[in-house]
């Protein structure tokens, strides 16, 4: 499915506006979790990496693809896990009495 330049640019434009609108209302309390979550989401590069590592058209591409899948996987696993860990720390009431 070749889409051509214009439809892709439209998608980019709309997604950017959605991102700006969604994130603008974010509480500053959560800026660090936001950053680690978007970090995990940017590991979506795994999609391109998997295809290259799977097709193995040349040795070079297989090596580059495998390194790329590894790097993305580190971010996927690490990114979601640490975001979840951080959010578990945000508590409203006193958890223990000193």
């Amino acid at each position, binding site marked *: 499915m070749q889409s051509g330049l214009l439809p892709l640019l439209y998608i980019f434009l709309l997604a950017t506006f959605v991102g700006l609108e969604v994130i603008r209302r974010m509480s500053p309390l959560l800026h660090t979790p*936001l950053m680690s979550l978007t970090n995990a989401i940017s590991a979506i590069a795994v999609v391109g990496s998997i295809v290259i590592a799977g097709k193995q058209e040349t040795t070079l591409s297989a090596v580059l693809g495998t390194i790329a899948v590894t790097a993305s996987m580190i971010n996927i696993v690490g990114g979601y896990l*640490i975001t979840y860990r951080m959010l578990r720390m945000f508590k409203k009431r006193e958890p223990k009495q000193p």
Partner: protein
Amino acid sequence: MSEHAIHILYMASAACFILALKWLSAVPTARRGVITGIVGMLLAVGGTLMLLTPEAQAHGWFHTYRWILVAFVVGAVIGVPMAMMPMTAVPQRTALSHAFGALAAGLVGAAEYYLRTPNLGRFTMGALGVEIILGFLTFTASLMAFGKLQEILPTRPIVYKMQNVVNLSAFTASVLIGAWLVMHPGHTVLFPIMSLLALIFGVMLIIPIGGADMPTVIALLNSYAGLSACAMGFVLDNKLLIVAGALDGSSGLILSIIMCKAMNRSFTNVLFGGFGQVQIGGKAEQRTVRSASPEEAVAFLEAANSVMVVPGYGMAVAQAQHRVRDLFDHLTAHGVDVKFAIHPVAGRMPGHMNVLLAEAEIPYDKLVEMEDANVEMP
């Protein structure tokens, strides 16, 4: 699995990512946001693995998936300990994972270039150039940021004459070579030079940046890593990559704009190598500062009705949040209303101070944003 079904999976994945960010914007729904993000990523990875079915049927399942499997295992083995780091180490961890994300984008770009050249359309080559330049410069810049935050490298800004000229010419040269490759994608000799210049530029970009400016830089690198993935979407004609990359790009952009505003700096000032330069501006109000010994401070604080603590970079560096928590407990026990006013750039990355205080088990409703705190202050 037909190609259409995979496209629908990708579409669902994109929707998940948008919902994930939407739910992350408030504490009560934030955990749901993370789960949704995980679902989105599983859909994307699952769909992509299915995309390889024809390959697997032609060459055998093991042959096709062997390296992917190895990479998944190695990635998970490295990823889990990286998520278990203490909260004080989150800034350097984030910088390091920006480096991994950008590296992945850059390497995929390089692989695509060598596989497709010289049959590259101008549009594809242009997107490829953006992907590779952004990916590689973010890779080394993030590694440098990691080095500075981990204090492997000197944290003070290193400035020399003509720095901006040198940096900009490296960047311009890289972009010009990229533009030349758009016209003549077959000139493979130029490709490593372009990549190398981008890698060098990334290092030089961070050299003049001091520790206190790191929040802005990390936010900006976050944005670049996202945009690099986005450019990959243009190369591969993959809309999911474009959506996810654009979400990241806009998130990083918003965060860096917030950081700039909070420091009374213009965005262009930061973008064009203004990092680390101290700007004196704004109207300064003359007030007297009273300093006190610890004993006097105890008397002052215990006698107060309400206390506003303004934690700064020093608390983050000294890792004193648990001592602050002790103070909070002590004063609360005396009936003092203690609140924390958090400046947007306080800490070593955006929002870091909130996480540190949350880790020290200070309830998050005691953390006040700058605007609200200014209203409450006398």
